[in-house]
């Protein structure tokens, strides 16, 4: 964690906006792929075991087709499966910097089972043709690691939506028992299974037409499986979605979130209708429409989660922006003091005084801050200290409110410091 804290960059508002956009892109790339991979490998391992035990060649073939459907290329596994995880961790450590988000370490710890699970699933894919017990075991272990890894991953990200509860998450049990965490995981699983079912129809029938001309019994079996699984889990998805919405904290809500949620349910209703229609007629010609609409719905789910996160972290983002402002104000003067500057620019100093300082300070009268005659004597022989104070003020006298950082340019700070000391020495010093 310290490593991630050390590599965080200065969180200016523009920088934070950019990394947040990148975070959404990473989720849009990662989650649909991983959802399909988990769905297809769960069913593939299931049919692989069932095919071998019951000597059912149809099941064995389907197990192969399922895993080939998503895990078709190792590079895709690395690009969409592993790399986004690392980027997501870096971005979260950036946007949650100094937020004491106790679930962040768990998110990073989830990568080990996830990456191991991905490796085992790919080994399973490349060895599935041998039809050995060890292949099924490898697949089962890979699937279990992926399921466990994503339980922690999804629970951790869901917990970021509720900053008020961060302090109460001190162990993995506290991380996982929240309704928000469990609800998000179940939503991820149901939508992944739904996407897999619809994906079977799209990839194996309408897109590649791989099964359109093969054994009719096998095609009918795959069609029935894809449509049934797609329909059941598309119907279950909105239940967990609404459950997750109910469990969101108040600060995560916004009008956009509600509108997007309704749009999502309308899209899922359309997909359900298409699937039911195909199941009734035992045909697959609407597969492309169903798959495309479901993918859009899946994207909306990710965007919705991003909106909720953005709403919840809004105040923390503001805090980081204020902090970066203060940091910048500190860094720039330190550099300029070393270089020396225009303390003799009295005209500019007078203009800054009138524009910025005079609302709170006068030389002989207390307004908001103390009169200058009371505080300038200690800076008479040390103008650099006065410059440092104006550039980065700290509370000095408990009788006055602290002076806010005015965010002045260093040249302005130098000019006003020179002007104040000159005025004090020439006109007000007794």
């Amino acid at each position, binding site marked *: 964690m310290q490593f991630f804290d050390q590599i965080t960059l200065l969180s200016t508002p523009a920088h934070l906006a950019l990394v947040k956009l990148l975070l959404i892109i990473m989720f849009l790339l990662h989650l649909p792929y991983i959802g399909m991979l988990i769905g297809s490998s769960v069913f593939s391992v299931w049919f692989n075991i069932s095919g071998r035990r019951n000597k059912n060649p149809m099941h064995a073939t389907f197990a192969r087709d399922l895993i080939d459907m998503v895990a078709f290329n190792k590079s895709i596994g690395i690009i969409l499966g592993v790399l986004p995880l690392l980027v997501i961790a870096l971005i979260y450590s950036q946007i949650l910097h100094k937020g004491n988000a106790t679930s962040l370490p768990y998110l990073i710890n989830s990568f080990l089972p996830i990456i191991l699970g991905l490796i085992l699933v790919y080994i399973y894919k490349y060895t599935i043709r041998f039809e050995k017990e060890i292949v099924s075991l490898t697949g089962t272990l890979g699937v279990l690691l992926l399921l466990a890894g994503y339980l922690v991953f999804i629970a951790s990200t869901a917990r970021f939506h509720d*900053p008020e509860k961060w302090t109460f998450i001190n162990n993995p049990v506290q991380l996982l028992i929240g309704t928000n965490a469990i609800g998000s995981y179940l939503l991820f699983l149901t939508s992944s299974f739904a996407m897999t079912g619809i994906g079977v129809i799209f990839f194996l029938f309408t897109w590649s037409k791989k099964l359109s001309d093969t054994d009719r019994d096998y095609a009918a079996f795959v069609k029935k499986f894809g449509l049934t699984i797609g329909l059941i889990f598309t119907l279950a998805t909105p239940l967990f979605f609404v459950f997750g919405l109910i469990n969101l904290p108040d600060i995560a809500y916004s009008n956009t979130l509600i509108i997007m949620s309704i749009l999502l349910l309308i899209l899922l209703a359309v997909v359900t209708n298409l699937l039911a229609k195909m199941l009734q007629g035992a045909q697959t010609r609407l597969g492309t429409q169903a798959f495309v609409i479901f993918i859009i719905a899946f994207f909306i789910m990710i965007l919705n989660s991003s909106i909720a996160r953005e709403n919840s972290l809004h105040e923390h983002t503001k805090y980081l922006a204020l902090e970066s402002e203060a940091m910048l104000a500190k860094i720039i003067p330190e550099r300029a003091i070393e270089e020396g500057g225009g303390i003799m620019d009295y005209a500019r100093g007078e203009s800054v005084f009138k524009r910025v300082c005079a*609302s709170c300070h006068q030389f002989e009268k207390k307004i908001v801050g103390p009169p200058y005659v009371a505080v300038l004597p200690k800076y008479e022989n040390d103008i650099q200290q006065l410059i440092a104070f104006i550039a980065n003020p700290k509370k000095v006298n408990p009788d006055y409110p602290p002076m806010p950082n005015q965010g002045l340019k260093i040249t302005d700070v130098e000019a006003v410091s020179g002007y104040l000391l000159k005025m004090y020495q020439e006109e007000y010093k007794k």
Partner: protein
Amino acid sequence: MKINFRPLLIASYFGFLILIILLMGFIWKTYREAPDQPIAFSHQKHVSYVGLECNHCHQYATVALQPGIPAVSVCMECHENVATDRPEIIKLTEYWNNKEPVLWADVNYLPPHVHFSHKRHIQKGIDCNVCHGEVKNMEKIRQVKSLRMGWCVTCHRENGGSDDCWTCHK
């Protein structure tokens, strides 16, 4: 004529769930959203940025039952001169010139039958954010904890506070 019930069933199922979402939105908008205040006062700006302590404005928190909502004069100590051109400060100045109090909306409300002392809790070392959340980060003040009896009693039991009815219901 054969009626197709399938779209009707699907529409009813999803329609029901959409109604739940609308209801959630209504409840959030009506009861849970942070209330609008007559002046958009930002605690974040004043605590995190300016560096004011809680009791700079809530002056009685350490000595009385109620923490006290600052009088307009407290705001004007600074804002007679600071940021006077901002719209919210112009509004504040109007209250000051008209000698009217700012009628802030209730955020952390306790019913009258609850006897709660800010002084006692602060003396026990309970930090403000235990009940009020991270106020220093709030742009718009909102209630964070339920402040219901179960929540109070749980905290009392966990921290060795009295759970006698008379403690809170005099």
